[in-house]
């Protein structure tokens, strides 16, 4: 298609063409970065926790009177909960993936690493020590959570105790790969500041920590055979997915029967999905906002393109008539307007892609956003080209319908 006539005609509309170009450029830059932010946040909220979320629900219980024997109370509570119809497993736990409250310990592969890390005042600095989250719970936790042991075994009954000086631990695959690269993790020792090293007896696949950090350490986690021993405890219940609300209500009522002297906070009586929703609530709101504004920007830009194209078609009705009268086909006219739009949008996109990279650099400095992957650039270019063509289609088709006879009329 000949571009020369389009270019020379655009020379008469420098200002409008420039405006449109700038609008496309700014839209391109923003939408590109917003799309990237959306995908980052979606990546966060859809992280797999590794547990069987659909079957799990939980509630917290806190005894009002201090003293007494928390463990005995937990055992009595659990026995009552397991007897409830519909409950297939019940365990007492101190924390859960995406539950937010987390205890983490330094964990090293050898005593020398531990000494180095202590000397350097940092668990992560030596490179060999990690800061995994630690999950404690009553026997049966692995099964109740629906975790899959990829290697090794579950804890034996006699390994459970109340403090952190546990004999054994089950660790996540990610932690095993970081602590013992290239070695079989089973039987290895974890040095964690306790008197005796802890022996690894099992490895589970995916296991997300309660409170997320940077992406490389989200899956660093260990499970200890550590019985919860506080007045406050979380009871995890396993049941059929659609039975969970009923089970939760029944469980709360049953716990009050066992011992009414407790607080069961209503906001923590929830299914795993609700807990996940609560954890990511800000991110989901932000995704909604980002998505709305990206679509809004594209829509407004499309409106601008249509509006201006309409104006140009009206302004040039006579010229179009003349072109038609001297032999241009309807397709020629259509192509002309499409080509004109393509040129302007392309120029806008070129500037826009540069702006997008620049904007990303600013965002990286202020909002800890990673570098924009380059494949976002061609995608957003394609989206804007398509948008431009769609927006110009209506006015261009109207232009193509201008009859040649217009040329013979006075303007």
């Amino acid at each position, binding site marked *: 298609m000949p571009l020369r006539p389009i270019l020379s005609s655009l020379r008469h509309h420098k*200002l409008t063409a420039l405006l449109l170009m700038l609008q496309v450029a700014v839209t391109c830059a923003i939408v590109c970065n917003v799309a990237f932010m959306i995908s980052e946040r979606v990546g966060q909220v859809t992280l797999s926790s590794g547990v069987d979320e659909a079957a799990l629900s939980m509630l917290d219980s806190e005894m009002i009177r201090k003293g007494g024997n928390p463990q005995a109370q937990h055992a009595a509570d659990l026995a009552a909960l397991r007897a409830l119809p519909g409950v297939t497993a019940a365990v007492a736990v101190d924390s859960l993936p995406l539950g937010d409250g987390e205890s983490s310990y330094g964990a090293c592969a050898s005593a020398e690493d531990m000494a180095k890390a202590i000397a350097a005042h940092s668990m992560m600095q030596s490179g060999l020590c990690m800061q995994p989250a630690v999950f404690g719970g009553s026997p049966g936790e692995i099964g109740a959570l629906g975790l899959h042991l990829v290697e090794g075994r579950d804890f034996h009954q006699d390994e459970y105790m109340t403090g952190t000086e546990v004999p054994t631990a089950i660790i996540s695959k990610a932690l095993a790969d970081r602590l013992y690269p290239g070695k079989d993790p089973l039987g290895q020792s974890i040095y964690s500041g306790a008197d005796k090293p802890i022996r690894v007896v099992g490895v589970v696949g995916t296991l997300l920590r309660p409170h997320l950090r940077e992406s490389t350490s989200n899956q660093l986690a260990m499970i200890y055979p550590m019985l919860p021993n506080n007045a406050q405890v979380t009871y995890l219940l396993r049941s059929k997915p659609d039975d969970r609300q009923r089970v939760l209500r029944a469980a709360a009522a049953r716990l009050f029967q066992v011992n009414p002297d407790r607080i069961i906070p209503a906001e923590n009586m929830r299914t795993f999905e609700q807990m996940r929703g609560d954890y990511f609530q800000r991110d989901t709101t932000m995704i909604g906002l980002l998505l709305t504004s990206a679509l809004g920007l594209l829509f407004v830009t499309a409106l601008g393109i249509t*509006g201006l194209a309409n104006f140009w078609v009206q302004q040039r009705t006579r010229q179009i008539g003349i072109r038609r009268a001297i032999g241009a086909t309807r397709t020629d006219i259509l192509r002309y307007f499409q080509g004109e739009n393509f040129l302007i949008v392309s120029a806008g996109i070129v500037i826009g892609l540069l702006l997008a990279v620049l904007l990303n650099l600013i965002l990286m400095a202020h909002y800890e956003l990673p570098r924009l992957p380059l494949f976002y650039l061609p995608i957003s270019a394609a989206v804007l080209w398509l948008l431009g063509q769609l927006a110009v289609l209506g006015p261009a088709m109207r232009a193509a319908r201008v009859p040649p006879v217009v040329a013979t009329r006075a303007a």
Partner: protein
Amino acid sequence: MFGYYLDLALRSLKRNKVLTALMVIAIAVGIGASMTTLTVMHLLSGDPIPTRSATLFYPQVDPSPDPDPGHTHEAWDMMDYRSAMDLWAAHRADRQAMVASGSLRLTAPEVNQPPLMAQMLSTTSDFFPMFDVPFQYGGGWQPQDDQSRSRVAVISSDLNIKLFGGANSVGRTLRLKDNDVRIIGVLAPWRPSPQFYDVAGGRFSNGKTASFYNKPEDVFMPFSSSLDINASGTNIFTCWHVPDADTKIEDKPCVWVALWVQLDSAAKASNYRRFIADYAAQQKALGRLTHADNTTLRSLMQWLDFNQVVPSDVRLQTWLAFAFLLICLFNTVGLLLAKFLRRSGEIGVRRALGATQGAVLAQCLVEAGLIGLIGGIGGWLLTLLGLALIRQQPVEYADLLHLDSMMFLTTFVMAIVASLLAGAVPAWRASRVALGLQLKTL
């Protein structure tokens, strides 16, 4: 002349309703989005206590013991008990209050309600006059109550409504854990934004600082007696050694106490700065502190800035909204250009009949301003809608959001200024149409 231009503008707007609607919607949406986020920003970044903030300061000394090479030379956000207590007890400022927060189980023995977990602020008697805290009933405690470890408490208006239905509860009893304390004051509704006296650790929060906008605590107690009751439930900022389980909280190698001081003049502030530096030097000489040079005295607003209290998501939303407004304005410029230039013939006639370029310019700007005004009304409604939507979100600052008169005015000023800016180039172009050419084509 203005009335005539207004009439012309109205006629012109009516002539092409679709184009007018497009421009008005573009301005309304852009203004609505930016005013919603700007209002949130305005409320979150404002001065929580405008009458006093210039005289309030946050002293810090650095109790970190090790000459750690990785030491950032920025003192921890709170102080250890010993340093805070020494500085507080010296009474070298016009007013001073220690602050630590915690949570504990609360019941009202005379009221038949289930126990609840309450947030408690441990502080000293100056807290209430220093921060201008409003009382509904009763009042705060006296300095001697701090000394004598009195079992007294001040409660929030919310808690008073929840437990006592809003009646005067002064003299009644609260049971905190297993201890009875007497209520001596009930606050009037008090909602500083942010809850400045608890702000700490903002630089470690990755921009997730919405919790700084929580409501104030429900129970306020003298620092001394609150430790008798709830040492175990008191929040600790961080520790430089793992504390032994049986160490008293006052002796733990941890930072958990904030100190606020009121210094009424610049001279007093610089004296106080010298006082804490001297204190740190003296403590270093005694062998208790290692980093004597690391003392700071930030003013309230500097402290809030340092903690970047406005959540990063809110800042991001504001930038996004203004980018949106920019695109909407680009659109309006283009559409106005189209609209004005389409009237080139009409403008040519006006010019031929003697209108000056300035008159044409003014006429076009009046039209643009009118679009801005209508768009502003739309933008105001959209802002109200946007704020209502955010209030539905479970965020800490939801109940703070409202459109105050300043932001209401800003909405219209911004809409009109934006539309005049958008109209400037098109109006200038329209006023410069080539006279002869236009008349010839008529």
